[in-house]
């Protein structure tokens, strides 16, 4: 018995190798991940980025002048416009990706109070949005997600004809989200299309909201 026990002893590295030996992605999981990467990489890069990446000085003779002008224009553009736009695009990509993936709901209920009670880890009180209310369908439930690494809730709605829409809510951080329009001050939500979906971003009752509709 003692010798059998001793024979079972291996290095910690070998134990780890043994325990991870059977851990493999299934064919379906592998295909899903490869498709995710392939499909997203073939999409157009936002125009703002393309301009910066493809920028070349036109000629050596005007190197300094063109360089200075380019730098000034670039930094002014960056300071005035690029940061919020990039962040809005990042958030939009994040919520669209969440919408498309349709991950399982953690709580299935059409009752907002039930959803709030179940998602007790949220550090804010999810609201019934006045802005989103006009376009929503039947509330299906909610799940935890994140927006720019901040804990958020995804609320999913059935809008009929096999279509769905999702609403995301997260805490408002002035440093991150102050560029977003505040509907409580009469401002209009940012709106654009991404991957065939309509995305809207806004601040309402002290929360950051994003909606994705088909």
């Amino acid at each position, binding site marked *: 018995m003692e010798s059998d*026990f001793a024979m079972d002893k291996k*290095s*910690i590295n070998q134990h780890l190798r043994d325990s991870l030996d059977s*851990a493999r992605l299934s064919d379906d999981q*592998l295909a899903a991940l*490869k498709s995710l990467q392939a499909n997203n990489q073939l999409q157009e890069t936002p125009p703002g*980025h393309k301009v910066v990446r493809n920028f070349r000085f036109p000629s050596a003779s005007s190197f300094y002048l063109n360089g200075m002008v380019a730098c000034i224009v670039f930094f002014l553009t960056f300071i005035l416009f690029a940061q919020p736009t990039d962040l809005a695009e990042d958030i939009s990509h994040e919520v669209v990706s969440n919408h498309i993936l349709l991950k399982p709901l953690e709580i299935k209920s059409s009752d907002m109070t039930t959803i709030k009670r179940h998602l007790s880890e949220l550090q804010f009180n999810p609201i019934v949005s006045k802005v989103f209310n006009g376009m929503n369908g039947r509330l299906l439930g909610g799940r935890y997600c994140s927006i720019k690494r901040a804990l958020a809730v995804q609320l999913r709605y059935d809008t009929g004809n096999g279509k769905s829409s999702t609403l995301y809510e997260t805490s408002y951080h002035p440093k991150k989200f102050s560029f977003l329009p505040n509907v409580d001050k009469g401002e209009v939500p940012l709106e654009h299309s991404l991957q065939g979906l309509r995305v809207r971003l806004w601040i309402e009752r002290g929360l950051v909201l994003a909606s994705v509709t088909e």
Partner: protein
Amino acid sequence: MIASPDFMLSDADYQNLFKYGVALAGNEDDAFELLQQSIENFIRAQKASCDAQNIMNPAAYVRRSIKNLFIDRLRHEQKFHHLDYDECELEPILITEEHSLEELLITKQEFQSCWALMDVDERELLYLFAIEGYTVQEIADDLGMKKGTLLSKIHRLKARLRTQLELSHEGKKVV
């Protein structure tokens, strides 16, 4: 933008990253979710063209993203405690520490109880040793730390494992 084939992960990359996720999270469901979110992060970073240096090595980028996401989850669950080894009072490290983890022989049961008590950095360290086959220098380069710091980490890990094993042999509960 048409992606360069160099930026595409191979099947082997996906499988290794999945194993890495399992090593950290301890189960395949969480590992898959971490990997999926990390691929999304990678795509976003690639589109934004930020962090270009890291994106040159997609597998490393995704691995780092898996770790960060996992730490975020632990923080959310308030289970993450970071120890800065540079600030520790380091004990003298022998050069043999580099291979010392291979010398520590334990049973499967002991491995499982030790593994459950290891933190994220320790699990990553062992993963890089055992699965990726990295040397200490390669791991130090990969994690952006000094070789001496890494050796001290190994030394402390081994000492802690020995203590845990002694306590478990004595029948005491390891906290």
